[in-house]
Structures are given as C-alpha cells and as structure tokens.
C-alpha cells in the first residue's frame, strides 16, 4: 500500500538538511544576497552536494549517486522550500536528472550527482507535463537557434538540456552562441533567465519518442516533487505566523488568542496537512513508478500551489504591517509560493488534466443548457 508517512531514513535526512540550512542559509543571508543582485548561493550548493550528497539521491549507485529514490528528493525539497534556499536543486537534481535517467544518457549523471556540474531543462518554467513547447530550431552540426523565456535554474547551470527539433540536446551553458539574460523575477530567491541560442553547438542526447518521453518525465517529476517544496514553504509560513501571534500582544492579549486569528491558522494547518498527504502520494507514486503517477502529479499541482500561496498570504496578514515589509522573511516565501504556483502549469491547468485522468468530462460542445 502507498506509504504516506516519513520513514526513519527520511526523517534523518530532513534533520541533516535542516541543520545545514539553519546554519548556512538563514533568511537574512538570503535576503542580503537578493539585495546584492546575486541570489544563487554557490557555496551553499557546494555544501549541500558535498556534505549531504543531495544531488545524487535519485541517481543509481553505478552512476555515482545514492540511488535512494524520489521520496527522499521530496524531503530535501520540503526543507529547501522551508528555507527558500537559493540553490539549483529543482533544475539540476529533479528536472535534468530525471530527463537524463529517462533517456538513459548516463555520461552526465555522475558529474550531476557529484555536484561537479549543474544542469537544467530549457523550457519556460510554467510548462506543464502534457505540452512541452519547442521554440528552438536545430541545424546540422548539430547547432541550436532560438530563444526560451523564463527558464528556472539556468543562471547557475553549466549544462543546458534543450528540447529542440525531434530531440533533446545538451549545450554548454558557457559555450559560443549561448546567451543567458537574467529576468527580474517575482521569485527573488530563484530568479529565472531568458536563454537565447545563436547557432550554438549542441550534442543530441536523445531523439524521437525517447526525447519526448524524457521531457514529459522530467516535467511530471517537477510537478510531483514541487508539491513537496510547496509543503515546506507552507509549513514555514504557518510556523512563522504561529510564533508571531503567540508573542505579539495587542489589547493586552496575545494576538493568537483572538478567535479570528486562531481559526484562520487552524484552517491553514488543515490545508497544509492535506497538502502534505497529497505531496507524499505524488512522491511515492513517482518513486514506485505507480501507474497513478500522472494523476498524482496533477492532483499535487492542482492542490499544493494554492495551499502554499494561501499560507504565505495568511502569514503576511498575521504579521500585520511587519509582514508587509522587506525586512521580514514573509515576502520571500510569498514570492516563492506565488511563482511556484505557476511552475509546471497552474492549478487550473492541472484540474483540466483531471478532466481526462479522473473521467470528469467537460460539457459536450455547442449544447448550452437552458
């Protein structure tokens, strides 16, 4: 049966990641990086990969990884979300790794698992699993020409995996003909980039159905696992709000003793509990190759993004004016939540996917009801 809980290994992993992030990625430090215009933190990434091996979790041992699977990746994402940590885990350890695993291209997996290399999948961040766009053209060489807007984790990437023509191509991010332009992003701790190719040399790593399948697999993994990051963001928002209203006094009482505040936070707790069950289900399906994975991923993105956004909004509100300031972590979480809600397709898009997956058919065309 599906296991929706955390086992001891997962709890231990969580503790390690949280301890590292608490020391090396407090929000004040992240905010300072944001203010300095360089959100991504290579030193933090080096520690996460070097000390905890987070990049190699889903990579089989023979390719230099830990081979433990995607349930553990989900736990790492919860903690990274909790800390709004500015590292390219989603692009590299989820999207690129999953794509390479799916197309059996193992040459890059070792460097990725070891953290010697950062990669990402070059699609707009809002691309949903069913419909990868392809605005990049291939010429002989092979070489790529085209432009993809709003790519996640492209800024710190060494290798770009680009769906183009009928294949999936690897491109040296610092090579000739590649231009990455930082986007002024809503999510300040994970800024996007526009990526342009002008006859950029490329290597084809998969073709035809294998390539298409690899991209779909990568995006499905992204949708399924991003839910865990969203749970981490939501839980942190709730924790911050609870801590604040327990100590902040107005009218001679803790603000958290007022029912309006209490009940709002109780509702958030209920929603986060539900999001956690949904996210665990998606991670477990992905890890076990369950045939329900596509539905689980769409369910996760139909549910968890809204929960994280609401939790962040409630967190701002519960802090009153303080939560509306730049010098409080609430806005980092809000921006991450709101941006992630669009990633891999918004809730609306994933609900539409359930039309087919859950057999809830749309109205027949052209037959308006009286």
């Amino acid at each position, binding site marked *: 049966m599906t296991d929706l809980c955390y086992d001891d290994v997962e709890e231990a992993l969580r503790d390690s990641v949280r301890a590292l992030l608490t020391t090396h990625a407090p929000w004040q430090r992240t905010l300072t990086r944001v203010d300095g215009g360089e959100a991504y933190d290579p030193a933090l990434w080096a520690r996460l990969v070097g000390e905890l091996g987070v990049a190699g979790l889903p990579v089989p041992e023979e390719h230099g990884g830990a081979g433990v699977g995607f349930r553990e990746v989900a736990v790492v994402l919860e903690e990274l979300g909790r800390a709004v940590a500015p590292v390219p885990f989603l692009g590299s350890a989820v999207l690129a790794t999953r794509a390479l695993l799916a197309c059996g291209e193992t040459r890059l997996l070792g460097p990725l698992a070891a953290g010697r290399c950062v990669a990402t999948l070059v699609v707009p961040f809002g691309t949903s699993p069913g419909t990868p766009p392809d605005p990049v053209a291939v010429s002989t060489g092979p070489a790529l020409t085209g432009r993809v807007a709003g790519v996640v984790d492209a800024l710190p990437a060494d290798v770009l995996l680009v769906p183009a023509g009928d294949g999936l191509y690897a491109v040296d991010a610092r090579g000739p003909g590649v231009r990455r332009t930082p986007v002024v992003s809503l999510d300040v701790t994970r800024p996007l980039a526009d990526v342009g190719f002008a006859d950029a040399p490329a290597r084809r790593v998969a073709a035809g159905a294998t390539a298409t399948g690899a991209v779909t697999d990568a995006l499905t993994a992204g949708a399924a696992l991003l839910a865990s990051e969203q749970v981490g963001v939501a839980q942190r928002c709730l924790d911050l709000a609870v801590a604040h209203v327990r100590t902040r006094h107005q009218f001679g009482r*803790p603000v958290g003793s007022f029912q309006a505040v209490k009940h709002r936070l109780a509702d958030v707790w209920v929603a986060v509990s539900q999001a956690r069950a*949904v996210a665990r289900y998606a991670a477990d399906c992905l890890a076990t190759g369950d045939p329900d994975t596509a539905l689980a991923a769409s369910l996760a993105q139909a549910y968890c993004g809204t929960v994280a956004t609401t939790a962040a909004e409630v967190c701002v509100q519960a802090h009153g004016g303080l939560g509306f300031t730049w010098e409080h972590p609430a806005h980092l979480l809000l921006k991450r939540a709101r941006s992630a809600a669009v990633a891999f397709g918004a809730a609306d898009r994933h609900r539409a996917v359930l039309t087919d997956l859950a057999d809830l058919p749309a109205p027949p065309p052209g037959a308006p009801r009286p």
Partner: protein
Amino acid sequence: MPDDDADRLRGLVAEFLRRHDPAGGATAFLGARFDAGLAWVHHPVGLGGLGLPRRLQPVLDEALARAGVPDHRPRRNSIGLGMAAPTVLRHGTPAQCQRWLRPLWTGEEVWCQLFSEPDAGSDLAAVTTRAVRDGDDWVVDGQKVWTSLAHRARWGLLLARTDPGVAKHRGLTYLVCDMTAPGVLVRPLRQLTGEAEFNEVFLTGVRLPDTLRLGAVGDGWRVARTTLMNERVAIGGRPLPREGGMIGLLARAWRARPELRTHGLHADLLRAWVEAEAARLTALRLRQQLAAGEPGPEGSAVKLTFAELAQRISALELDLLGDEGLRYDDWTMRRPEEPDLLGRTAAYRYLRARGNSIEGGTSEILRTVIAERVLGLPPEPRVDRPPSESGPDRPPPGPRPDRPPSEPGPDRPPGEPGADR
C-alpha cells in the same frame, strides 16, 4: 505487515473461519468472533481481543474481508462501537468490561450518548443534569437532547453533575444510564430533513446503581474526553477508496447526465474532486500515522474537512440537477434506523449535511481545538469560572480539556458518528 504477530493473526483467522460459518447468523457469528479474540485485536484476551498491538487491526479486517465475511455493519450500533467501547475499555472496571463489551459488539445491546443539554451544547462542561448519591444509587434528574438511537438503546453514556459547588469541569461524573429504568422518557426530535433521527431524553428520578459509574466521582470530564476524541475520529475517518464518499455520487451523476453539464459547473466539480481526493489521502495518512496510537486532536481536522466537503458537494449536486433538485422525496416524519448521509435524494443529502458542522462538535469548536491543542495558540480569557476558581482551590495546570474552555460558537448535538462509507 510482514511480522510474526501478523502471520499468527492470519493463521488464527483462517482457523476461525474453518470452524465458523458467517451464514450462520450475524449475532452468533459476531459472538464467536468476540470469543475468539477477533473483535478488537488490541483488547485483552477475554474482552474480544488478543492483546496484540493496535496496528494489527487492519490485518484482521483485511483477512476477514478477503474471506468474504460480511462487513460488521458498525452502523447498527455506531455509538456503541465507535464511542462506548473505547470508553468502557479504558475507564471501566473488569466487571463492567465483562458485562458490556460482548453484547455491544454483537449488536444485541445498542448504546446512545447522553451528553448535550439545551443549555450545554458547545459548552458541554456546563451540563446541569444532576446525579445525587442515595445509598448505593445515584438519582438522576435532568434533560438531554440530540440523542440519536435513544429509542432503541439499552445503555446511555451519561455525563451528569454530582458536585455543583466546584468548578464546572470538576463537578462531573460519568455514569452508564440504564435506558430501561423507570423515569427515562424518550421523545423524538424532528429535524429539518423531516425525519426524527434524534431524541430528547427526560430523566426524572432515575435510580442508577453506583456499579454503573465509569471512572471516579468528579472525574467525568476526563472520561468524556475519551468518548469525544473517538467520536471525531469515527466521523469521516474510515479509509475509503477513491470516489468512495459523497464525491462519488456527484461524479457518477455528472458522468450519467451530459445534458446537465456546463463549463462553470465543470470548474466547480474539478475543484471539489481535488479537495475530496486530498481529504481522502489525508484521512489515510492520519490512519497510517495513528495505526499504533490512540486518536488525538488531529482527528478534529478530518471531521472538520468531512463536514465542509459534504456540504459543498451536496450543494453542487443540487446545482447540477437544477429543476430536478427542487424535488424532495418525502417530508413525513420518519424514524430512520440509522442516518443515511449518502442516501435518498440530492436535496435530502444537502439538508442532512447541514448538520455535519454541528453534530459531534461544531466546526467552530474543532477549529479552536486545532488552534489550541495542535498549534499551541493561547486560550481566550475565561469568564465562566465560578468565584471559587480564582482562589487557592483553582485546579493545577494540566492537560487541557478536550472541549477547550475558550470555545465559541453554536451548540452541538453530538449525534451520530455518521461515517462516510
């Protein structure tokens, strides 16, 4: 569960089934299960169990289900099974357990719950029904409401005030009421659905021997907590297959009636389906977490979500049906055997679901339980302590009562567990 206990249990079930035929009558078969320790595995031997860990109950249930043993139909004695049994087991004397558990399990003796009163709804600790000691008996006078099954019950879980001089949570004692005793008068209470699922119970000079007391004198609130925690988990806590609850009715109506569909309703349906599936997975996860333990305040969340979804989904089905939804099946005053939250018509289900956020603890109460007992938020200022409370007589700080003192809001009929099937 690949462990020795589980294997042993499966062996016991197999052997049991070789010797007992479920077709031989439900009561006899259930009695045999009890006697073989195959009722509640975590109960002691002799009291329907085998003294095994609680987490093995699903192994038992599964083994029986696989063998085609008919469902126990706990709804035949839902309050007995869901609330009385755990309360008796935890707080009862050996003799009480001996006396009550077997006929409760077999359904030969139906139980009801005598907690709520006209002026003690959400504020359950404010009950004024008095029990006065007279020799070896208690003499009980008062009025209870929202008592489902009272008209069929042999026993009632009774919360009564035995010491009006102390703080309200401390003057209560928990008794088991003999519903056949002289002075017990049961009257039907009609609901907005038209039926009379509940009752008012008038207690006039009812003599109950002290042997019917559960727990110590003055300790009734603590005993009642066990009942209430189990009540909330019972509601909506059963593991369901996908579309196993009210959402399944809506989804099937949707599939069957393409001519009623609109894009607006489709958007609502998809949202509801997602919410229902999330709630189902959450209940499943809670069950996996609690497999080894007793219900805690987290159960309140499941009950809260269940009520909200039942109300929303039944309303949506009415939206879908349009003109057809304006029809009702029957307004005559029925006395249903059990509430049927998924039965009758969409309009009935919509109306019945209005009670889900009231019975068994209002949604307002449950939110406060979550906020205070799960999130640790501070209680509201208290105004309902009698003067003696502010003196040295004040009780020491301890575990908060299940109905937190700071509770808000509308009353509650405790009502049926009414689990979603």
